[in-house]
């Protein structure tokens, strides 16, 4: 660990809180947290996955126990998951992500509004 700041501990817990609460989104806190601890951008992105992976497994366990998850329902999404992961991981460090982030932001805002108005 390069340098640990006081906010490392509460924000690490927040990463898990998001994972449990939304089943996603831990990386949103993990990446800037790791950056603030001195990791370079690509390392922060990669390391954030090493954090959110075990946390997602734990969340999945709680969802299973709470009967909010049927494992077989996730099956149709797995081929795309593998292919997309290969492409995304390969792209990391190869693309200037600024325009990608803008498009991503626009899609997310549009969809969020749709979700809120539903």
């Amino acid at each position, binding site marked *: 660990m390069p340098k640990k700041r006081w906010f490392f501990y509460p924000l690490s817990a*927040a990463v898990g809180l998001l994972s449990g609460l939304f089943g996603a*989104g831990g990386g949103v806190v993990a990446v800037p947290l790791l950056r603030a601890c001195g990791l370079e951008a690509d390392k922060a992105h990669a390391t954030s996955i090493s954090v959110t992976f*075990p946390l997602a497994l734990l969340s999945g366990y709680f969802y299973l126990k709470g009967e909010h998850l049927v494992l077989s*329902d996730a099956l149709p999404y797995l081929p795309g998951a593998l292919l997309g992961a290969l492409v995304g991981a390969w792209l990391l460090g190869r693309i200037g992500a600024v325009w990608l982030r803008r498009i991503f932001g626009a899609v997310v805002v*549009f969809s969020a509004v749709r979700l809120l108005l539903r």
Partner: protein
Amino acid sequence: MSWITIGIASFLSAALGALGMGGGGVLVLYLTAYAGMEQLAAQGINLVFFVPVAAVALLIHQKNKRIVWSATVPCVILGSIGVYFGAKLAMLLGSQALSKLFGVFLLLIGARELLASPKKEGKQDKGKK
């Protein structure tokens, strides 16, 4: 939901997820806002979906020596406590309220991505390397 839309949605979500761009949320978003699935069910699917995405991404990132494990361990230990309370809260709130909360969370993320200063980030990266 056709196989094609499932394929495209899962591919794009996974690619963004492996890039560490908060792509995990994209599948939840697709499932709830477009496919009309219940929030908790969508989140459960997303958690399973993330397992192969993360496994593949980790293998590749490890090969490229991008993972700082000394940062991972304490973050995961404290994060586990958060997971416990997060999952509890999710089930307490129920799908209806949770989906509104998720919408607000996404609005914040989307706004941050749209408003992020590319100049500043570029400078920071340059300085670190």
